[in-house]
């Protein structure tokens, strides 16, 4: 296999590459925040005029809540009643599974193709030198 000589990249294009990578990183991190995707599936199950008993707290637990600065049940209500919703959205789960599986399949297949070139050049060169 002939030894591959990469083209020289102009200074301008190196900057373009850097800007592309940085922009992509920012988009990947910033977009979910802006679009509200970064939030979690949960909601507050409201109890009117809550008491510690209604919130399911034992006397020992109440003592700790008070030490932590929660004077009454109303103050702790939103923390205690903030529940996760673990209902599975099967469509979203299947999409996610396909995206992850597709990503890794592409990754390993494309990597293998590139790797074969690396090995061919590295070890063919070595053999020629011998």
């Amino acid at each position, binding site marked *: 296999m002939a*030894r*591959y000589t*990469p083209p*020289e*990249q102009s*200074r301008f294009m190196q*900057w373009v*590459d*850097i800007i*592309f*990578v*940085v922009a*992509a*990183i*920012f*988009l*990947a*991190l910033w977009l*979910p*925040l802006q679009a509200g*995707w*970064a939030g*979690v*599936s949960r909601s507050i199950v409201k109890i009117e005029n809550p008491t510690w008993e209604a919130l*399911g*707290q*034992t006397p*020992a*637990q109440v003592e*700790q*809540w008070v*030490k*932590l600065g929660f004077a009454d049940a109303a103050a*702790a209500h939103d*923390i205690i009643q903030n529940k*996760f919703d*673990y209902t*599975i*959205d099967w469509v*979203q*789960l299947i999409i*996610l599974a396909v*995206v*992850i599986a*597709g*990503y890794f399949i*592409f*990754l*390993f297949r*494309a*990597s*293998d193709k*590139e*790797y074969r070139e*690396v*090995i*061919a*050049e*590295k070890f063919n*060169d070595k053999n020629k030198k011998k």
Partner: protein
Amino acid sequence: MSNATASAADTVKKISLLRILGPGHVWALGVGIVLVGEYTGWNFAADKGGTLAALIICWVIGLLYTSVAMIDSEVTSTVAAAGGQYAQAKHIVGPLMAFNVALYLVFAYTMLEVSNAILIADTVKAYAGEGFTDWHYKGIIAIVIVGLAALNYRGVLMTLNVNFVITAIAYLAIIVLFFSVQPWSQGTILKLNEMVTPENALPYGWIGVIAAFHWGIWFYLGIEGTTQAAEEVRSPARSLPYGTMAGMITLLIGASITWYICASLMPWQYLGFTYYPLLDAGKLTGSALLENMMFAATILAALASANGCINDAARAWFSLGRDRYLPQWFSAVHPVYRTPYRSIIFLVPIALAFAFIANLGQAITFSILSGVLHYTFMSVNIMMFRNKWPLGTIQRGYTHPFHPLPAIVLLALCVVTYFAIFLGYGAQLTAMVVFYVIMSLWFHFYRYRYVKRGDQFTMPWPKPRGY
């Protein structure tokens, strides 16, 4: 970055990183990055599944990370190059995988660094009282990120010496707190059986335990960062396995103690809500001394973690430049301090920007997502490594036992963790994977043309089996 500069970069490249670190520094790097997870983050597992779920995943995820440490020790003690798993991927799987692994590393560590800076600012804010403005908050974040970057710029030995000291203090603080609450005498200060009852131990049932895997990662996330020091340790074959395994033992003990203290002092809903479980534990003892000690230790743990993260993210970025996966300009080594200074500086504004726009929970989730993608790679990587170079064909610094069991356990736990992240953060996870797909297409179809082929393989190994 013209041709002339590229030639200059070739010259600069000949100045290598310094081989100056020992096993203690490897321990300080790994534990330093991770220990903050005991001070914040792991407790959100209680939020997702209850206090007992947090204990179950503490040990199950401990198993995942023991597998990570075993696998990593074998591969890194053999592929001793900066970039850690990036260098492993390059030699074992292929360039595109290596590019992705480096991005996982940069994302995981930079977002972890951001989380630490936010945690420090939040902790100070919680105690500062009135008069603490948004400018003070942002000022603390900026000082932490820029100050630690300057320390990293100055030299790896000083950076990790500092990390060793502050990590040891933060770890000792947990031990002191543990003995101060008289763990041998339940009912005196600790009230485990009154905080964790049969009714509230698993409030969401077993689905909650699975969901808790997401935050359980935070008990240990970053221990694999020890491999980033591979090119700077005096003896990779000895220092990396010792440092990494000692780090895992330290963390398993620390995580179990932390759970025991916090679970015995706080109702599970509060434990899953607070950003400072150990600091709150100190407060609940009623001792001002313990509370102040945990306040200082929280900040020290976050500083140690951010410090190690800057070290690791910069080395991953530096390695990408060195192999031309990114412009070679990033691969320069400082002529005096022998650090990847351009990479260190380049990542500072990115960290600052996200520290100003993200909150702690979001930054941690970004970091965890990249970590799990990374561990998925590691499980396949070790199997390919053993297939391509079976035992006896190359010299290994360390050979991990029970292969392929750790790899299978790791892969299985990664799949469970994807599902756990999906339970609550599905859209975010999909968005992140789409990002990696786009970057992979960019690299494979465009950027890779600038990469020298055979030069990427630098290990003195025979041709891999099957090629």
